[in-house]
């Protein structure tokens, strides 16, 4: 049957194949997703840098009159401005989670199905433990990446809520005052500030791992992961794109292919 045909096409022989695997270009990341990503990069870098400066101001000026400078005030202003942009960027992404294509959909980010759990285990085996070479080849992100981004969204939410709660004292605007109710949960503003500060380091950790894994994926999988952030196109093996399983939740990710020269058996696919 059709699936059998797929299987035989897909399970590559141990001997070096004569013909290279055919890839097609697929448009995965729509413009709003890419805009979100790079605006997010700009916001996070700005917020991280200014936030760190606010936490530990260097001695740029060591003497002078207060009337002669305002650099620290400017740093804080930039931080607050970037925070508003950050909220806007997050709102855009949240909207696109409902309006975008299926790779951008909200469902991907939530652990909803048993298949996602199985895929997560497989991702860990292939990419982290490297005990298997049966790579999932999702069109979008792999499940672990989606879940990590969901966690990062929560971190962003915490940073926004805590940051604006701290900012409310110096603002007449209604928006920051939406969040001041969380201060008593933390006991005092000082404690909340410490948590807000800790979030910076979690973001830094995320960025480090995220950038590494992008390079890793681009290098090891060779499907244009990095360039897809700019143009939106990824490269997908023709057989994966054509497989019926590619119509799944996060697209494509149901099919495994053995990329090792030793070959591998076809694991069960999702019903």
């Amino acid at each position, binding site marked *: 049957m059709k699936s059998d045909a797929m299987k035989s096409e897909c399970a590559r022989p141990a001997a*070096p*194949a*004569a*013909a*290279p*695997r055919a890839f097609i270009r697929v448009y995965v990341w729509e413009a709003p997703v890419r805009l979100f990503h790079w605006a997010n990069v700009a916001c996070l870098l700005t917020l991280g840098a200014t936030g760190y400066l606010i*936490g*530990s*101001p260097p*001695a*740029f*000026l*060591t*003497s*002078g009159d*207060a*009337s*002669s*400078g*305002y*650099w*620290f*005030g400017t*740093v*804080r202003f930039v931080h607050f401005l970037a925070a508003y942009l950050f909220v806007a960027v997050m709102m855009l992404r949240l909207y696109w989670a409902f309006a975008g294509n299926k790779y951008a959909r909200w469902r991907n980010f939530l652990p909803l199905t048993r298949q996602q759990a199985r895929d997560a285990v497989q991702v860990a085996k292939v990419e*982290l433990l*490297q005990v298997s*070479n049966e790579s999932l080849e999702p069109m979008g992100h792999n499940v672990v990446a989606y879940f990590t981004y969901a966690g990062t969204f929560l971190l962003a939410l915490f940073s926004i809520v805590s940051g604006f709660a*701290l900012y409310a*004292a*110096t603002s007449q605007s209604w928006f920051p005052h939406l969040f*001041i*109710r969380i*201060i*008593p949960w933390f*006991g*005092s*503003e*000082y*404690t*909340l*500030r*410490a948590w807000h*500060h*800790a979030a*910076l*380091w979690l973001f*830094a*950790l995320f960025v*480090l*791992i995220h950038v*590494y894994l992008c390079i*890793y994926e681009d*290098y*090891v*999988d*060779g499907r244009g992961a990095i360039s897809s952030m700019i143009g939106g196109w990824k490269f997908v093996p023709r057989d994966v794109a054509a497989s019926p399983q590619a119509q799944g939740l996060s697209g494509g990710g149901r099919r495994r292919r053995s*990329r*090792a*020269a030793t070959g591998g058996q076809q694991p069960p696919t999702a019903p």
Partner: protein
Amino acid sequence: MPALLESPVVPTIYEQMQSRGVNRRDFLKFCAWMSAYLGLQESGIAQIARAIETRRRLPVVWMHFQECTCCSESFLRSSHPIVADILLDKLSLDYTETLQAAAGQQAEEVLQDTIKRYRGEYVMLVEGSIPIGADGAYCVVGGKSAIDSVREVAAGAKAIIAWGNCACAGCVQSANPNPTQAMPVKAIIKDKPIIHVQGCPPIAEVMAGVLVHLLTFDRLPQLDALGRPKVFYSARVHDTCYRRPNFDAGLFVETFDDANAKKGYCLYKMGCRGPTTYNACGSLKWNNGTSFPIQSGHPCLGCSEAGFWDNGPFYRRLTNVPGFGIESTADRLGVTALGATAVALAAHAAVTRVRKRDTIGEQPGENAEAAEASRPTPPDGPANPEI
């Protein structure tokens, strides 16, 4: 309360003040001071004057539990001398361990008498935290544990004023590991309005102002999310600090003995908690408006915020993170975590190079030159006209 206030037998507060030799001029000066502290408009002076002229004494029970009495001490040092006079002598404290002449049996009788006679009318002032560990054995007054006393007295109180950080948030007694399980009043009493007059101690004028507000308007002052009177606690010390321009200009004291400290730069980097502390120190100041910690060159400790003892060390911006040893700030942990992660990623990259060598680089059939060579020659021209 009205029945008590309008009772002809008890003289008004003003009458009592007159009998003590306070003249009209001093009385009005006091009213003007108080309306200024409360942030009232000019007509507020008349309102306060009228209230003090017409109202009878407000029955007050001042309970002391786990505390150092610094709230009482602060109160006694209120800047206008007659504040303490009227509030202590005339407003009438029916019961307060520190100042009452009565002792022992007599004192307990007064307390019982007051809470029975003025049930639902008296105001309960609490100074100190309430330990609930060991069935309250850590704080027993007159044979009764603090937790029993506070429940008994609060039951008939019209309102509660929690004086100072102990009664508001547990202060040093509740600092980690809190051996006596010291609790603030709000943890014990849930069904009464509580005014939290924060600080360690609160500013004397703030204490007096809250009492005068109760007396004048016969209702609670406007409170913030943490139950503190907004009039005194809506601004951060940072916002009213006279050193604030140095903060915005990025001029900081780097060490306590540097030239910047002499110049009076911002104490932010010395751990000043002003940016997260809500209090009136910057505007009212202390000791007859003489000074406040930052003016004396010392960073704010944040004594009007919950848990400030556990947010140490006081002279650094970032608190230690519990469970990670001494000197473990979020920054230090963050840098360590980043470094460890970088090492782990480098190891992962190295393992990847070995384990995934079959998929990295040129794969069978992917040779670029071979692909070029095998390109079919177009019928009309050379294979690669552009080269």
